[in-house]
């Protein structure tokens, strides 16, 4: 059952990712992205991380995507016009090689060690909100705070580039 769910969610995620990239309408792309996010939540749940899975649905598939859709619709994201062009054959390897490389990497690892290489026994309470909170406010407290600074920088940047020009206050 777990194996089936894994492949189901994995296939859904790949499909969602592909459709997000190839769609011509930004709105449809965004909806496919929700699909991919929900599938990713399924994978997280299978990985014994129920809390992350819930957050994935609430924050990404919920809040952030609503914001995305809202912004796209507000800006009236254009449907890409123009002639349909095929990708140059010379670029195919560039697209194909990275995923293949990951497949080979994981494949050789499994061939060498069996799937046991990826399944270490989990400590009790792994993935629970308590566990996540302990890591977030304990070992990773500094990283947590740094992320807030990085986001603040991004906000300042968005404002600085997007806002109306300010008058010099002393003139």
């Amino acid at each position, binding site marked *: 059952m777990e194996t089936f769910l894994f492949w189901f969610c994995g296939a859904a995620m790949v499909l969602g990712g592909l459709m997000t990239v190839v769609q011509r309408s930004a709105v449809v792309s965004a909806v496919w992205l929700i699909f991919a996010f929900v599938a990713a939540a399924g994978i997280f749940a299978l990985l014994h991380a129920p809390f992350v899975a819930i957050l994935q649905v609430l924050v990404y598939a919920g809040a952030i995507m609503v914001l995305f859709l809202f912004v796209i619709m507000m800006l009236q994201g254009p449907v890409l016009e123009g002639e349909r062009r095929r990708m140059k054959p010379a670029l195919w390897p560039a697209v194909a090689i990275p995923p293949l490389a990951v497949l080979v990497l994981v494949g050789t690892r499994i061939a*060498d060690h069996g799937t046991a290489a990826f399944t270490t026994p989990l400590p009790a309470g792994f993935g629970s909100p308590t566990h996540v909170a302990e890591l977030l406010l304990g070992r990773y407290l500094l990283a947590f705070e740094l992320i807030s600074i990085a986001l603040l920088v991004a906000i300042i940047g968005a404002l600085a580039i997007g806002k109306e*020009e300010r008058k010099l206050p002393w003139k």
Partner: protein
Amino acid sequence: MTHFEMPLDATSWSVLLPYLVIGGGGLLVMLVDAFVRTLKKDHLSYLTLCVFLASIVVQIAVHPGEGPRLGGMLLAGDWSRFFNYLFAGIGIMTTIFATGIYDRDGRYRPEFYPLLLFTVLGMMVLAAANDLLAVFLGLETMSLATYILAGGVRGNVRSSEAGFKYLVLGGFSSAFLLMGMALLYGYAGDTNFDAIARVLATGGGATILVTAGSALMLMGFGFKVAMVPFHMWTPDVYDGAPAYVTGFMATAVKAAGFAILLRVALLLQPQLAWAWYPVLTVFAVLTMSLGNLVALVQNNIKRMLAWSSIAHAGYLLLGVVTLLSPAVGDPARQALARTVGESAASAVLFYLVGYSLMNLAAFGVVNVLSNRGGEDADDINRYAGLSRRRPVAAATLAVALLSLAGIPPFVGFMAKFYLFAAVVKAGLVPLAVIGVINSLVSVYYYLRVIVVMYMKDTEADSYDGVEWVSVATAGALAALVLYLGIRPDAFHAAAASVIRQLPF
């Protein structure tokens, strides 16, 4: 419930203090700009200077000891102290050069100051990082702020182009870096450097994961330090960004990139020297040669300095190559390995400081002139007759350029001397020869600017007025370039003592 470990004891606070000063200072500057109504011209700039000075004072006053702190996130001690001083110094210079910018480009840019402080915070975290998470977050904080600094002059197409290019390519390189970190995590089962080192020492885990992961990470760092073949963004971004930002990027971002490159190279050296050594050798030679060759044909001084900064990244890479060379990895000759490794790493640090000084001096002058001279102000031919009309600025630029070319008695010569000496000590004579040939080539394009300044003249004075504060600061940097070129010993010894903190 398991035990709840709060990592913030008294020592942790003292480790954090300089970071808190810079980060809190950034917030303070931002809030002051937003809420203080009586703000006058340049006040934010003075406040920013105070924050940088406070961070230096805190560094001098508080000694939190050595070793990994804060749950292994940051490495406290001389290494991070060294880089914190360097970044604060570069920040002070940049703030001085940028003072009054909203008069010059006619636009009020208050976001510059908090962003500068946050960039420096990111760099400090990056240089002190002892955990892959800290590496990534420091790098991203630094990069995000730099994208905006580079592209922040609104209404200026070239600046916007620079910001956008940097953002897109930088995002791309960060993705590579993150993927590499994920693979390395998959290999070691931990993000902490010490834990990774332990796993590497025992040789457990799948080698292919760590090989591929470190290759991807090398791409990410190579992008930040403008290593060929990841250098494509450099000329456009350095040219499009305002000169005071370019000077900052060429010195501080590069120093931060090399700090983490050194850390990661030393971390992975026992297992991966065989892979990194040949690859980095090729990249170092390419970086030096391409940077110098393309700089030969540039007519825009910012583009010229951009290509020259690529060339200097190549010299610095020689130091990293030396660290990874077989002579250092040879267990049979431990004592020799240690001296070679130490001299290479301390040469890189000395080079970073010397390079920062001379490059900031050059960009200080270029900044003043490029803000005063109109559209084609960065054209080298516009510098004709500068020695007659602006003798101090011309002399400063001349000293900086001679030092960049590696001509004695300036610091650029000593920096190259220490570096090439370390390369030779490791038995890599061909590499040292290539490096020397490259610096000979570079003399041509640096001297060209000096020839234009001192031996050509024009009728019209193309520059109206010069900001004497910026010129005086650049002049002081040039004096320091000369001083460190004549008396480098004490400083070199200090750089060597910084290195001893790192494991070899």
